[in-house]
């Protein structure tokens, strides 16, 4: 996927003016955010499980080579073909090779963010294969030629009306008289179309929420059942998973499963949690004849070696973006690459380079909500700050920003100058605000005041007030 991370500011401006997008995003606080809070309230052990989840992930990362080897051994023992891919291109080539060996024409796909990361659909289509996304949100995006704007609710940026228009345009045999006013009718329409695809697919590709070392299994967590139809009806099931997905035991994965759906959608558990191990057994009447797992690195081992290792604890629930004021204002596409929101702001520079993605760790108010809801307790604001430091050290920060920081540093190192300047600024801003109590147009910061007022200081600096209250107390 070609990143547009460099134009984040322009992307964000456009997103703020997009009425349909703003309507779609307005549902977040009462939707996913409120649902997570309710699910957490129903489980008193939730925060204790978060500590355990963090510890399980840390332990696994500290022994990642070992758990990968144990996973591989047990998966092969169950009949899986395990393939290792260092890069996205290697993974695409391997998957294409498997499809060719199976004489595949039609490939169905369950939802997989990693497949977006490596541009898998594009590669398979270029080779002449028909690729069909079967998650409803992903299917809608595929017919629109768009990418997901959220990692668990890929079409969250769209309104129901837009989907209706898309189906009327794409499903050419749809009579105009057919009523599609209710979401249920739209779901039914997609269900009928995709049924045929499931039944005739040659290869089914899914991602994996987790891999289990103990049993050599892969797990997918879904609500629609599309991932299960994808993997049970095709002759060949291919799992695409990055190396950080591995978890030692079934007991360990249960801790993570208790956190995943609650943090993501506020469900206690999704409708379907499926553990797949090897291909169909000799006596099985259904299931895939072959089962392949692609273990993809694509930058994870570099992250493991870096000061950003903690981001590899992520279980992709999306809570950080649901609770992020920046994501809530601009949506996922503005971030310009596969992973939006706070997790994307840390992950993206690690995967495509800070020079490309420097805007993302800067697009944060550091309000800390993401860290406060992260089920794996990843210190997201701290990691974003570290990316800003890397950016500064590599001299990638803009001239204005460096000048501003230098200026600030000059004052900060000279208390008398700092006091004088802040005294001047406080009274100047108060004067500018007048009786309104807010500055509507701040010279030199017009971009900031264009969309909001700046609350005016009440006229005196913090130090002045501090000294005053000290004097009064000692009286």
């Amino acid at each position, binding site marked *: 996927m070609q990143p547009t991370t460099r134009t984040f500011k322009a992307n964000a401006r456009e997103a703020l003016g997009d009425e349909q997008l703003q309507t*779609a995003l307005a549902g977040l606080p009462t939707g996913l955010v409120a649902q997570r809070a309710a699910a957490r309230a129903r*489980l008193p052990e939730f925060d*204790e*499980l978060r500590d*355990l989840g963090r510890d*399980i992930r840390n332990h696994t*990362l*500290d022994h*990642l080579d*070992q*758990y*990968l080897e*144990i996973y591989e051994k*047990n998966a092969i023992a169950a009949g899986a073909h395990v393939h290792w891919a*260092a890069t996205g291109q290697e993974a695409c080539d391997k998957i294409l090779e498997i499809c060719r060996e199976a004489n595949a024409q039609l490939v169905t796909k369950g939802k997989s963010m990693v497949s977006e990361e490596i541009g898998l659909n594009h590669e398979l289509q270029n080779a002449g294969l028909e690729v069909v996304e079967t998650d*409803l*949100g992903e299917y809608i995006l595929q017919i629109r030629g768009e990418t997901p704007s959220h990692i668990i*609710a890929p079409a969250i940026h*769209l309104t129901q009306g837009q*989907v209706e228009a898309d189906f009327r345009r794409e499903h050419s045999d749809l009579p105009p008289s057919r009523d599609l006013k209710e979401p249920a009718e739209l*779901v039914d329409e997609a*269900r009928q179309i995709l*049924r045929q695809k*499931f039944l005739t697919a040659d290869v089914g590709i899914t991602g994996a929420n987790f891999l289990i*070392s*103990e049993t*050599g*299994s892969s797990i997918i967590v879904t609500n*629609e*059942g*599309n991932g299960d139809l994808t993997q*049970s009806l095709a002759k060949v099931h291919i799992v695409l998973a990055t*190396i950080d997905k591995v978890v*030692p*035991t079934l*007991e*360990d994965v*249960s*801790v993570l*499963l208790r956190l995943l759906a609650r943090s993501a*959608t506020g*469900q*206690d*558990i999704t*409708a*379907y949690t*499926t*553990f797949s*191990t*090897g291909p169909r057994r000799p*006596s*099985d*009447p*259904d*299931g895939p004849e072959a089962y392949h797992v692609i273990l993809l*690195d694509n930058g994870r*081992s*570099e992250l*493991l*070696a870096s000061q950003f290792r903690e981001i590899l604890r992520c279980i992709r629930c999306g809570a950080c973006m649901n609770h992020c004021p920046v994501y809530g204002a601009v949506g996922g596409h503005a971030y310009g690459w596969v992973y939006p929101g706070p997790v994307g702001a840390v992950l993206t520079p690690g995967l495509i380079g800070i020079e490309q993605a420097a805007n993302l760790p800067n697009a944060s108010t550091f309000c800390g909500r993401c860290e406060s809801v992260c089920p794996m307790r990843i210190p997201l604001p701290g990691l974003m700050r570290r990316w800003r430091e890397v950016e500064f050290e590599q001299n990638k920060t803009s001239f204005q920003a460096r000048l501003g920081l230098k200026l600030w540093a000059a004052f900060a190192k000279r208390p008398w100058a700092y006091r004088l300047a802040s005294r001047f600024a406080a009274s100047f801003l108060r004067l500018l605000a007048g009786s309104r109590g807010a500055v509507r147009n701040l010279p030199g910061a017009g971009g900031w005041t264009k969309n909001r007022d700046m609350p005016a200081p009440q006229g005196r600096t913090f130090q002045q007030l501090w000294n005053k209250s000290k004097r009064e107390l000692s009286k």
Partner: protein
Amino acid sequence: MSRDQILAKVRAAISDATPQLQRRAAAEARVAKPSRSAPPLQRVSRPTQELIEVFKYELGRQSANVIEAQGSIPQSIAAYLQEAALPPTLRCGSDSRLTRLQWRDAPTLALQHGPAAAQDDIGLSHAFCGIAETGTLALLSGPENPVTLCFLPDTHIVVVRRSDIVASYEDAYVRLRHLLGERRMPRTLNLISGPSRTADIGGKIVIGAHGPRRLCVVIDNTN
């Protein structure tokens, strides 16, 4: 080779002072003797009778129908299908817990065997166990209960024995290891907690996305 390359990079990245052999031993010990990591949950720290109530309540929250079979299970199924105005033909695998039921009690029902076909309306499975904590059914794929029965038909009926309802996921894994042996899994272990659903259009929940529109759980009280 990518495998060795990746593993070498991972090892270099860990650069732990702990010797390789010791790390290997730690990982192998954890996998060889899996132990419960999670604390006991208040929700299911209660006597068996109440566990079944939790199981039923949680399934209900997830839009499943729950029937406690008082007399014959085929009769309960026939009554459910009639009330929901559903066709009387069911498809099931070779599970003897299902085939040995007194199907003569419900002469309106017709039973077909094998994996699900596209035109099947109703799939019938027997659960390996029920998990009270989240109202979840655990099913094992195989000739007894083909996996496609869980996903292709519009309606999925699952029978679970009252004595097979356990408190938590971990309890189910202990039973699974007991049944199949350590480190053994069927092709799929399916945890099912309600009918298929989606919220991908405008954030509104719609039941019946790609999988079953109805999930009916029949609790077998006979043992």
